[in-house]
């Protein structure tokens, strides 16, 4: 799982990085809202942690911006303020959870795990893009022309591409969604399976390989 931390306090962001990586997450860090937005535009993340007060663009504006762009990646908002009004403002801006500073690192990890579980549950069901429909529960990919079964690994892989069409997803993130013990050669085969299945249902999209990873054409 790949997480983005957008936090201007370097000591705190360093501590968060060490802690999250120790707990098995891949992390990326931005130190202000604008840098965070640039990273969000160019990378895939399973979840994000935003500080509320940041230079250039604060956490609320960053949230409002990405939600208005259709990004549904779950976000935890961190703040030094704990007034009810502030919590409500953060949640209304699109945060999935809210944690007041100072917080226990254990609680943050527990909340991130709960947020990711909840996000996976809500993206169960169906995902639409262009002329395709991924039915995750019955592991089936459909178009108006045809339908085809997918295995669980193919569903997991296609899900991350469908969450962020057009965005390059690096190979390590793809591998983490393919499952433990997966290797880059296996990833290439699964990408080829998916591409041939997209062709078979006459999908208006396919997965393209780049030097850094793969993306779903939009």
């Amino acid at each position, binding site marked *: 799982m790949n997480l983005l931390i957008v936090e201007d306090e370097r000591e705190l962001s360093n501590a968060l990085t060490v802690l999250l990586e120790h707990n098995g997450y891949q992390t990326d860090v931005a130190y202000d809202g604008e840098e965070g937005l640039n990273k969000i535009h160019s990378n895939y993340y399973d979840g994000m942690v935003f500080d509320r007060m940041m230079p250039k663009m604060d956490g609320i504006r960053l949230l409002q911006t990405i939600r208005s762009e259709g990004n549904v990646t779950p976000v935890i908002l961190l703040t030094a303020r704990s007034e009810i009004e502030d919590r409500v403002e953060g949640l209304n801006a699109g945060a999935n959870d809210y944690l007041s500073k100072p917080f226990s690192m254990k609680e943050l990890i527990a909340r991130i795990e709960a947020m990711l579980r909840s996000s996976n549950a809500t993206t169960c069901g169906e995902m639409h893009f262009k002329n395709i429909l991924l039915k995750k529960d019955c592991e*089936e990919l459909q178009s108006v022309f*045809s*339908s*085809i*079964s*997918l295995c669980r690994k193919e569903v997991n892989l296609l899900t991350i591409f469908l969450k962020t069409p057009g965005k390059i997803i690096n190979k390590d993130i793809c591998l983490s969604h393919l499952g433990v013990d997966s290797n880059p050669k296996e990833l290439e*085969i699964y990408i*080829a*399976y998916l591409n041939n299945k997209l062709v*078979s249902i006459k999908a208006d999209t396919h997965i393209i390989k780049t030097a850094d990873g793969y993306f779903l054409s939009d």
Partner: protein
Amino acid sequence: MEKNFYGNLLPKLELLDKTFTSEIDYYRNTGKAKDEIDPIEHFKHRIKSEKSLKEKLERRHLPITLESAMAELTDIVGFRIVCTFIHEIYAIADYFKNHTGLHLLIEKDYVKYPKENGYRSLHLIFEYTDGVLAHIPFELQIRTVSMDCWASLEHQLKYKHQIKDPELIVTELKRCASIMASIDINLQTIYQIIKENDA
């Protein structure tokens, strides 16, 4: 098999059956001569039995006459080629579509556009352009082993009327068709990877 219904036409239909069978044998042998693996897993052919022909005419509310059968049905003589990989379906189809003595009348691609029940196969209706066999339509079906296996089971279902919960069986058969199609694509992908490694 009772084929009295066909009367004097039967020798012509038998000749058509024999002639196109030899075309298919030639295609297989040409592939083998080039040290390639035989692209055809198995091959069946038949002249429709009188019983089956009459049933089809009845189902379509057509007169039960030879004239009506010859005018309306295109599968009185039928051939079925079963191959290993999806790309072979189209390679075989292209071979016969480019055959100078044959004219393609109808193409129904249920591989790219499966039937609602999940049926997948390529159906081509041809006729010979010249000679004594000219203008007698016949059907060539081409599909993979897994498509054939599915079609065989689905065909049995049609003739078993005592199945409990037929809707569930139909749904499950459709799901199987989708899984088998998925496996066909995976095998095709692995085949392509092996071929690329050879190149």
